[in-house]
């Protein structure tokens, strides 16, 4: 089983999180495999963002064990946690760019913090990342408040991949984008995942993204992961919310478009 364990880049067991008396997760289990794009879906307020924050160690769960790269996220020394943190990148739901820094400086920030690089080199590498996510050249020196919502998302993504992490956590990257922009973002994620060998933990509501790029889908409901599997598996799950979600009119439309695209 050693190989299978190696394969599991994130392992969550028996996770319990609560805010006061409000229980968000109750005995949640989840595995993420190396190199996959896993889509995490669930109704608003089911705790997708909270799960993400717990995995990256921003939030202390009440109970349970979270391992990333086979190492517990909570019971580590500061030095170990810093080393761990270098191996993942996070893009928050609302971008969370540093508003006093330009886009390029935002991407430079993690490099500055974690590595001793010459300023020139840092700038060159950051500029490459900014171009990689498809931002125009004149966006490099703009401040976040001067960008559109979609551009801010791209900039957030550029900062998340600044250090070529092994895992990126993306919290609803395509929310609020126009359908064309969202599709382009999906393709971008997929391409960079291939090029950089990323594992992607993708929180999303976007059925098109799920069809287009996710290898597996995890459904959060009733305070735990209700089902994990491919999109095809999801159609079989017998739970009211899941059925509604994957069989609803939008789901059918997304499925139809992904089938015709596949055929074309």
């Amino acid at each position: 089983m050693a190989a299978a364990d190696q394969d599991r880049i994130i392992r969550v067991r028996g996770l319990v999180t609560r805010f006061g008396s409000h229980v968000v997760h109750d005995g949640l289990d989840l595995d993420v495999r190396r190199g996959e794009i896993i889509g995490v879906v669930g109704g608003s307020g089911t705790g997708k963002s909270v799960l993400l924050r717990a995995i990256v160690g921003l939030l202390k769960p009440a109970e349970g064990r979270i391992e990333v790269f086979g190492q517990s996220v909570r019971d580590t020394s500061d030095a170990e946690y810093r080393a761990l943190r270098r191996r993942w990148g996070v893009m928050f739901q609302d971008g969370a760019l540093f508003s006093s820094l330009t886009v390029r400086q935002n991407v430079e920030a993690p490099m500055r913090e974690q590595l001793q690089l010459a300023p020139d080199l840092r700038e060159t590498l950051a500029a490459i990342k900014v171009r990689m996510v498809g931002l125009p050249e004149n966006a490099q020196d703009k401040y976040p408040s001067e960008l559109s919502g979609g551009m801010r998302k791209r900039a957030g993504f550029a900062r998340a991949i600044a250090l070529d992490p092994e895992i990126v956590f993306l919290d609803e990257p395509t929310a609020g984008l126009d359908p064309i922009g969202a599709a382009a973002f999906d393709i971008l994620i997929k391409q960079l995942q291939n090029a950089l060998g990323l594992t992607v933990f993708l929180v999303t509501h976007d059925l098109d993204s799920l069809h287009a790029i996710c290898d597996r889908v995890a459904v959060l409901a009733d305070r735990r992961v209700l089902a994990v599997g491919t999109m095809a598996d999801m159609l079989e799950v017998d739970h009211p919310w899941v059925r509604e979600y994957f069989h609803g009119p939008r789901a059918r439309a997304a499925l139809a478009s992904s089938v015709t695209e596949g055929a074309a």
Partner: protein
Amino acid sequence: MPKSINGSVQLSVADARLTLTGRLDIGVVGRLDPHAILAQGQGQGVSVLDIAGLSQIDTAGAWFLLDLERRIATRGGSIAIEGASAVQAQLIERVRANLAPDDIPPPPRKSPVDHLEEFGRKTASAGRKSVELISFLGQTVATIAGIVVHPKRLRLTSLVHHCQEVGLNAVPIVALMAFLIGVVLAFQGSAQLRQFGAEVFVVDLIAISILRELGILLTAIIVAGRSGSAFTAAIGSMKMREEIDAMRTLGLDPVTILVVPRVLALMIMLPALGLIADVSGLVGGALMSWIELGVSPAVFQSRLVSNTDVWHFGVGMIKAPFFALIIGIIGCYEGMMVGGDAESLGRMTSTSVVLSIFMVIVMDALFSIFFAVVGV
């Protein structure tokens, strides 16, 4: 023979092939010297960069390889990158597609004329800002006048809330501050007046300076630091989160809802705080005169009543609403000027405090001249 050029990456040169083995990632790239590598390959006329032995490359590594390639190209040579795995090749191509465009013009250098221009621009924008501030004042006063005509428009709950916030909650600090000022005045005054045997004049000294100037001026400065900054921060963060825009689209007037209650609350409460400061300053002064000079409270009181013109108190109180208006308007205006970023919030908050204290002191000076001319 492989030569380690760095802990985790090795270099060897043979048969016109430059071979890299090991790991080439962002942690390594920063410590590599491309000149040294090129110098190694120089004499041998290398034409192939063999990276089959590289176990790991990332974006930075790919950039480094492309940078080597470019350096060799600029010297008129050429080199082919070989042995990349499919994934590595894909990464290298992706980075190549995103290298800096060659035609970026270098940023123009600043000449003295540019500095002069910048100075001019700053002056012009300061002038513009004063005009805007005055028009904001006008708008607020007009809105207040509108409320006088239609009292229903007043947000009473909000007004009461702000009265509590800027007035009631400031009482302890204002009272303590004024008390201490009274103590200091009595102490310093007695040391001087005793030399002339004119101890009892300490009462006049304390009464005039506190009632006329210090009580209200120091209260205004404390309130500017306490409430002016709070106004800027609160309105500024609403501006940042587009709440102000949201209000406008809902047909709600931010001046009526946010500015007027704050400014009115200050105009009501600052005179009250000034009164409290006057009383507690006199108490502090009386206490210290008693201890230091043996001027009993009864003597202090009778001399205060008989010798101090009530106009000294009047002058202080007349100034209070004007100071309040200055603090409130500047605090709210700077809040409205906050941009989209967190830094501007901090900058505007400190500007608001500095500017309102400065303007309060300017106003105080103008009042001194005015009262001197009218002879009170």
